[in-house]
């Protein structure tokens, strides 16, 4: 397997405060890596740092290019889509406008129309609510919109920050099934932060356990889920 994203010595923080203290991890081409850890461990910060939303340093090799000197807008153009903490949809705009913005950097408008049709197969609900203001969608629908908005970019790597947050168990199941489909059928690699550790380990091939901004444990998902400490702290058995 080739490595798509290779993070080495990532440090990041807010203002003078460093929150992430030198991390190494990878995402394989077509693979799924899960970032796990307690509240406040720094998972959201890691995703923000990858996208250039906050100050960061280290080596961030993505498909042979270093993301570190790039701005967020440039990183997006490299094919990295981020579904951020709190979803990041444009609540004042319609579903349709949100999707148009998702494809903002794409120039192949004909292919965008095809991709949109594919996205409506994944999320038929969005098609029914095309002209509804995004802020008035249900939580689950907003999450679907956030993922759809990221997919329409046709990313090589999709970053997801707690896609199950605030959703009913059945909806979470749906979302994870969809993510599996996206990963398998579209060859989109995933880097996923998730409190629902069981679901995340089920989906992932690699897992990284973060504790106060450092890697506590990393490896194949099956090994991480078999780890005693992980089992007791996150899986509850």
């Amino acid at each position, binding site marked *: 397997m080739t490595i798509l994203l290779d993070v080495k010595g990532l440090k990041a923080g807010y203002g003078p405060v460093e929150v992430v203290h030198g991390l190494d991890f990878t995402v394989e081409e077509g693979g799924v890596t899960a970032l796990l850890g307690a509240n406040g461990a720094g998972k959201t910060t890691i995703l923000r740092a990858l*996208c250039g*939303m906050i100050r960061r340093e280290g080596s961030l090799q993505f498909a042979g290019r270093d993301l570190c000197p790039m*701005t*967020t*807008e440039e990183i*997006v*153009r490299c094919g990295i*889509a*981020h579904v*951020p903490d*709190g979803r*990041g*949809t*444009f*609540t*004042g*705009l319609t579903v349709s*406008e949100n999707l*148009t*913005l*998702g494809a*903002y*950097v794409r120039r192949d408008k004909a292919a965008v129309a095809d991709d949109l049709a594919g996205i409506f197969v994944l999320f038929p609900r969005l098609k029914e609510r095309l002209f509804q203001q995004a*802020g*008035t969608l249900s939580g689950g629908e*907003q999450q679907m919109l956030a993922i759809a*908005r990221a997919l329409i*970019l046709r990313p090589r790597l999709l970053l997801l920050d707690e896609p199950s947050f605030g959703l009913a168990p059945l909806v979470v199941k749906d979302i994870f099934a969809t993510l599996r489909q996206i990963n398998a059928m579209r060859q989109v690699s995933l880097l996923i932060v998730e409190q629902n550790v069981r679901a995340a380990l089920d989906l992932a091939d690699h897992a990284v356990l973060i504790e106060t901004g450092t890697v506590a444990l990393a490896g194949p998902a099956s090994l991480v889920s078999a780890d005693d400490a992980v089992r007791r702290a996150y899986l509850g058995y």
Partner: protein
Amino acid sequence: MTAFLNQCFSGLAMGGIFAILALSLVMIFQATALLNFAQGEMAMASTYLAWQLIQHRVPYWLAFFLTVILSFAAGVLIERLIIRRFASAPVLTVVIVFIALVFIIDSVVGWIFGYQLQEFPSPFPDHNWFNNPLVSSHQSGILLVTLIVMAVVWAFFRFTTLGLAMRAAAQNPASSRLVGIKVGWMLALGWGLAAAIGSIAGMMAAPLVYLDPSMMSSLLLYGFAGAVLGGINNPWGAVLGGLIVGVSVNLVGAYLVGTQLQLAVALTMIIGVLLVRPSGLFGRTIVTRV
């Protein structure tokens, strides 16, 4: 009755100018939550540019569109070169920058062109259209131009991807960056559009108030009154507010208090509206879900 209607129409025409100015104020306010006090002086400088072109025998409408385009470029440049450097400065600092801009533009224009009043031509005919007794062709022309400006601005924001990106950048800069929108450039474009729209207000006002470096200062206050009255976060409310201010100030000036108190009336209206409805008559309180 004719005299009354006459007053209404001339108020509506001035209101059209206030409305265009209000629209240019809203354009920048929506993106940055700042009121550009220099908007009036920028429009005044643009009007001098148009005047200079017309003096050089450039046909009116060519001069008009050249001025709009050059004003757009100047607006973009002002944002890129000056305002952007204060992006993370405290509000008070930015206010001081705006006030400085007012005086800098004012004195530079005065230094180049002098302070004497100049005549500025109207592109509309001298006789009233269709021989109507009520409204001069320049007055109806202003209203027509106001409507066209509104339609073009509306269509731009409603139907183009760039307009959509500008709205997105104003509402949610962080998410906008995540879809690849260059938020800084969207702000600069907003300044450009505001300057272009403002230049139209200046060129429409100049035949009525004559051209001089201080021509826009009270007009801007009326535009400001219109924007606040209608709702500073709602472009169409601001336009309506401008028209309402134009008509009511004119009627009050003609029938109640005389022209000297017109500005006081406008400012009283602002304070009154802000007391009762802080978001303006048509202001939206945006409902968001986090």
